[in-house]
């Protein structure tokens, strides 16, 4: 998510002579992308920064200031850190709050403080101006202070009108499905189950925790007593709830990325201090601080060798230590203690390597190519034949198409896998054949010209019971404006091009508008293909060629019946080719060759006679006289 950080606000924490563009560049190369530097009407620079989701700690001016202060001195700029003073107020014991937490995992840390004698009015100008610059509308001093500190420290907080909490009682629990409340923005929201909510002593829901307060307990111009409310919620529940409600507030976006556990109390006292100063408030209760989880500081090993290995250059121990210290890590022998604000993000020695190397500067690392052992090679044949087929088809005038992996109901087969969350009806069923979509392409392009030739080489997805679907590679072809035998010939020629010796059968389908199509199991074909061609010695004897015309009888026979018979008759029949067909007159070209000696016309005559006999006897195919 993107945040806005005004340069003047940043100065509260870090004094530097670096110009805004220099700060932006340093952040972009070493920490976070500064996407833009906006300028306010008064000429103030405001950084728009993209914060990666692992860095909830940086969703505040303080978080960015920490990075800037650690970074700038390394780049030759001065940076003076202004340590925020930890304030502590005076606890009183006038008002109480009865807190019941149904499930400790809902709220790892629950903190609150009652303030009295509150005067609700406008905030001072600096608060109003700063809030406006970061896009938050100022409302009144109490609410503005809570918002201000969220942007300043990254800790969302809420202010209740204490007198509107019936029975001074809070029950923190998960919502039941269908419960309703009206949030501060005036919207009535019906809740799904599992949203963290607070119920007061009269059973009213008074807070949509971590997302937005409820209207029935809001601070208004008549408020006298305020319950200042600072929490750490379960990030997963906040995220789920806010997504389910479609209500992504600044508070929710911060809670769901994790809150600095040690930052809660200082933030609360800071808020109390500001309310005393700008709203005339006074402490009126003890500090309520309920810890529902045990917070154990985390330590991680500093693996110098690993850091150098990952970087590919040597970074000195001193430099490593400086960088980590600058970022708030505290050394403890071989290990460092992770700062509380990086608790969720730093886990492994590799995480520390990232911290060190990004500060060292990725751009300073050399460019190297891989060396080392030979990588294992995988079989590349299928890729090879894909290229052969694609090139061949392109040169034969085909257009290559890419269609979506899924299609609509009309084009899908009965047993197609269905998506459970399709974006559109057009893209709902996984394709089991390439043809329906290819035919669609032809249909859509009918106006293109008299002849259309398209193909696609892609996987289809075939359902298997309780297993990954089979995903075979298919070749689909569709043409319009071509003779049946011409189309068939293209596919046969492709087999030849692929060096397929045993002719593979395929089916040609006929559709409306004289569209023809075929689909081929490409992996089968590739498996039959011969990359290495074995040469047949050239023969020094001449062959004899002749054309013979037969009469195809009026019975159910196929060309391959004829072909099989002829080729089986004599091994001296070198080639048999289909030459022409006119009505039912079939002309074949036959070539005879004897590899041992020159074949004579007497010998071919003998073979020819056998051909006539066998064809007539077995198929009733006679020579045309």
């Amino acid at each position, binding site marked *: 998510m993107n945040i806005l950080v005004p340069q003047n606000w940043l100065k509260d924490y870090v004094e530097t002579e670096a110009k805004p563009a220099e700060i932006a560049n340093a952040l972009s190369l070493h920490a976070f992308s500064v996407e833009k530097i906006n300028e306010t009407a008064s000429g103030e620079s405001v950084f728009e920064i993209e914060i*990666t989701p692992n860095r909830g700690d940086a969703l505040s001016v303080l978080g960015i200031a920490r990075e800037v202060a650690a970074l700038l001195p390394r780049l030759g700029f001065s940076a003076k850190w202004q340590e925020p003073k930890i304030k502590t107020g005076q606890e009183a014991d006038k008002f109480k709050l009865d807190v019941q937490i149904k499930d400790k995992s809902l709220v790892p840390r629950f903190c609150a403080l009652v303030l009295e004698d509150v005067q609700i009015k406008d905030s001072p100008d600096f608060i109003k101006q700063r809030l406006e610059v970061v896009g938050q509308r100022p409302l009144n001093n109490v609410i503005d202070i809570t918002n201000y500190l969220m942007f300043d420290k990254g800790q969302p907080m809420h202010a209740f009108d204490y007198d509107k909490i019936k029975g001074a009682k809070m029950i923190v629990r998960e919502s039941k499905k269908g419960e309703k409340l009206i949030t501060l923005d005036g919207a009535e929201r019906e809740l799904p189950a599992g949203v963290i909510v607070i119920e007061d002593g009269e059973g009213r829901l008074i807070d949509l925790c971590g997302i937005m307060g409820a209207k029935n307990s809001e601070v208004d111009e008549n408020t006298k007593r305020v319950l200042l409310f600072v929490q750490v919620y379960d990030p997963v529940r906040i995220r789920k709830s806010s997504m389910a409600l479609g209500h992504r507030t600044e508070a929710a976006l911060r809670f769901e990325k994790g809150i600095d556990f040690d930052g809660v109390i200082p933030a609360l006292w800071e808020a109390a201090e500001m309310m005393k100063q700008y709203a005339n408030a006074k402490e009126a209760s003890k500090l309520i601080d309920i810890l529902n989880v045990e917070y154990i500081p985390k330590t991680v090993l500093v693996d110098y060798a690993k850091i150098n290995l990952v970087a*590919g250059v040597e970074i000195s121990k001193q430099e490593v230590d400086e960088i980590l210290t600058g970022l708030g890590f505290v050394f403890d022998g071989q290990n460092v203690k992770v700062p509380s604000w990086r608790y969720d993000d730093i886990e*492994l020695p590799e995480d520390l*390597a990232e911290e060190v190397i990004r500060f060292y500067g*990725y751009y300073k690392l050399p460019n190297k190519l891989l060396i080392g052992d030979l990588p*294992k090679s995988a079989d590349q044949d299928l890729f090879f034949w894909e290229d052969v087929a694609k090139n061949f088809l392109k040169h034969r005038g085909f257009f290559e198409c890419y269609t979506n992996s899924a299609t609509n109901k009309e084009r899908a087969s009965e047993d197609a896998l269905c998506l459970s969350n399709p*974006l559109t009806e057009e893209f709902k069923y996984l394709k089991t054949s390439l043809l329906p979509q290819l035919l669609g392409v032809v249909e859509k392009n009918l106006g293109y010209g008299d002849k259309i030739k398209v193909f696609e080489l892609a996987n289809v997805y075939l359902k298997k019971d309780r297993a990954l679907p089979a995903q075979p590679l298919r070749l689909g072809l569709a043409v319009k404006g071509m003779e049946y035998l011409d189309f068939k010939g293209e596919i046969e020629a492709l087999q030849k091009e692929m060096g397929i010796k045993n002719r593979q059968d395929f089916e040609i389908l006929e559709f409306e508008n004289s569209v023809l199509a075929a689909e081929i199991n490409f992996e089968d074909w590739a498996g039959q293909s011969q990359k290495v061609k074995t040469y047949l010695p050239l023969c020094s004897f001449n062959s004899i060629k002749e054309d013979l015309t037969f009469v195809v009888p009026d019975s159910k026979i196929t060309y391959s019946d004829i072909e099989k018979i002829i080729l089986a008759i004599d091994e001296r029949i070198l080639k048999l080719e289909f030459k022409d067909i006119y009505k039912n007159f079939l002309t074949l070209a036959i070539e005879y060759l004897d590899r041992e000696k020159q074949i004579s016309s007497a010998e071919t005559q003998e073979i020819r006679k056998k051909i006539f006999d066998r064809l007539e006897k077995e198929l009733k195919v006679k020579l045309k006289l």
Partner: protein
Amino acid sequence: MDLKELKNLIVEFKDDAKKLSSTADFEELRIKYAGKKGKLAEAFEEFKKLGASEKKEFGQKLNELKREVEEEIAKLQENFLNKKSESPIDTFLKTLPGRQPEAGHLHIITQAIREIVEIFKPLGFVRVRHPEIDWEWFAFEVLNIPATHPARDEWETFFVDAPEDKKYGRLVITPHTSNGQVHEMLKNDLPIRMLGISRCGRRQEDVRHLQTFFQFEGLAVDKGISISHLKGTLDYFAKNFFGPGREIRLRPYVFRFTEPSFEVDINCGLCLGKGCKFCKGGWVELGGAGMVHPNVLKAGGIDPKIYTGFAFGWGVERTYMMKSGTKIDDIRHLFNNDLRFLEQF
């Protein structure tokens, strides 16, 4: 003139005949040898001067020579003069455009994939293919993205309506080629240098996104692999794919399955990094990359204490469109299959 010179004369004639290139050349040749004062006439003059004993043999040879020259000249004349007789329409016909064979076209995605493969091949990257419909497990879990992790939402994943597997979860259209990483590691064949190119799917469609798209995934796992190797490999790719003046830089980013993770920028093709109107800061975002996360190596059965690796996975279409010159303003053209679009590539 003697017999020898007579022989030379025919050799000379033949040589001259070979050099003809125009009618004028031919005319010159004819006059030189067969003209009234040509070499043949000259030889006949010589003949007259000879004594009777020599005349017989010389005369015979001379006549042979004369016949040969005349025949040859007649042939040449035919060749040259026939050209002259071409009619205007015949001449026009030859100016017509030739009949070209019908032209087919490879899709721009195929062309892009081929270019990418050719660049990584010399670096030892081997092309592989992994499932396009895969288990959630390979698309997320083993990539250090557990089911509850918000990072899952970043991939607008399509789920298949099929029974869940106890271990592997639901079936998905893989939203990225990174599902191939652990598949590849589990082959248990180190070192790895793979280039996986496959179809992916995500629930989004606009001028920059398609529900179906291609990614190419590079993965290298070996002893001693560093960020410098990743930088070098990507820089090599950038220079070869986009042009010699181009270079890349890495910026910090976060992905669950790499640590550290980077956003990879390339210097702008127009200003080469100085900053211009088109690119603003001099650099344009290219895609993500990183060092393979130890948890991913572990999921692939590889010991992260011994091995390191890098990975990157970028969109084929998007990377190709960043090449200047294609001017494709809407990525949806790519799967629309309008032949008027396809014929342009």
